[in-house]
């Protein structure tokens, strides 16, 4: 088997958005990945590198606390010694983690102290964040949010044949998805509450345009989250999968 599951990687698009009023989407951002890991409520976060030389980069952790407020803290990496985000204190959800520059080691973001790992940032990447974050429902009708990610075939030599994207988990039942019209696109939408043009949203499997996903190519995937009037807070996940065949 030439293309294996670990060759198929989901990344963010160039412009995510935490706020209304900003363009969303764009081309693939291979430095940042979407994350769906839930922390155990009440955790304090720490981070550590596998390289002692990582002492100049900063790491910013943005999180939501149990009372709903959003906090942020920035600390300088300290090599293989963990840095603790005690300024944020106990958090309910990690929204975004961002390095100021790439590190020489793998950065592990985990529960303090030396607890369960939430996520690692591979060498060369810059961070991760939740797909839908800091949105809210309305008292007067449904609200739609849109976000874009990409599935990339990072295999440098072989195509994923007959590639399809399907949904494997949607516990909140609020999300549908649709594919960009072509691979390697840079399409955007005006803001996170405006549907991207030309995208059909559903929960059923969709075929990648052009049938195969070539080595190094990426297909944009739009997600639509629909919040009902006065929707309860959502702390959940949504997973998609790309599959196909390979020589």
């Amino acid at each position: 088997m030439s293309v294996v599951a670990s060759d198929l990687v989901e990344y963010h698009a160039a412009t995510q958005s935490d706020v209304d009023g900003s363009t969303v989407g764009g081309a693939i951002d291979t430095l940042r990945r979407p994350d769906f890991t839930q922390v155990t409520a009440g955790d304090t976060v720490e981070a550590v590198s596998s390289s002692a030389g990582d002492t100049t980069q900063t790491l910013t952790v943005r999180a939501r606390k149990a009372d709903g407020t959003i906090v942020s803290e920035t600390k300088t990496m300290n090599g293989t010694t963990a840095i603790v985000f005690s300024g944020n204190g106990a958090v309910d959800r990690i929204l975004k983690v961002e390095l100021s520059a790439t590190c020489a080691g793998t950065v592990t973001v985990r529960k303090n102290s030396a607890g369960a790992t939430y996520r690692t940032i591979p060498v060369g990447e810059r961070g991760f964040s939740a797909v839908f974050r800091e949105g809210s429902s309305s008292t007067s009708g449904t609200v739609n949010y849109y976000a874009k990610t990409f599935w990339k075939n990072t295999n440098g030599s072989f195509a994923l044949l007959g590639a399809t994207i399907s949904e494997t988990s949607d516990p909140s039942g609020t999300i549908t998805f649709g594919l960009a019209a072509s691979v390697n696109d840079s399409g955007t939408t005006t803001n996170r509450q405006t549907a991207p043009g030309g995208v059909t949203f559903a929960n059923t499997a969709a075929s990648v345009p052009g049938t195969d996903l070539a080595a190094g190519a990426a297909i944009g995937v739009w997600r639509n989250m629909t919040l009902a009037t006065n929707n309860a807070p959502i702390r959940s996940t949504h997973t998609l999968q790309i599959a196909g065949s390979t020589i």
Partner: protein
Amino acid sequence: MAGLRFTVLTSSWAADGQTFLGGPNEVAKPSKELLKLAAGAHAAGDIKISEGFDAKHVQTQAAGEKALAAAMGKRVEPDYNPDGTRDPGRWDGPWYEGHLDQFIRDAEQRLANPELDDGTRVYLETGVASAREQLKKIQKEAK
């Protein structure tokens, strides 16, 4: 040293032993450490600096993509085995080990879903087994 003026875009931002509340903030004599941390937070989108932004502390997207390409290294594809099969290829740079580690975590998270269909379960379990094999080889080579 010039001052630091910024707007905190969250409820609060903590840095250099201080906590700044949401909204406009000003530090007349910021430490070098605070300036660096502020630059990182500005790039992360958590504060907006209007005076005192030091860009040298933040890597541009273009420079980051170049660094990532270097970290991935070269793609190595093995030859066919005598039985006609071929082992998976790999990237030979330091990115690959962290990538495989995270792939395994993501896959195990998905596998924990009891409602996962059988086909996806087999696909992920095969993927995890392959990734673990590759990780073992990488870690052995590193010793």
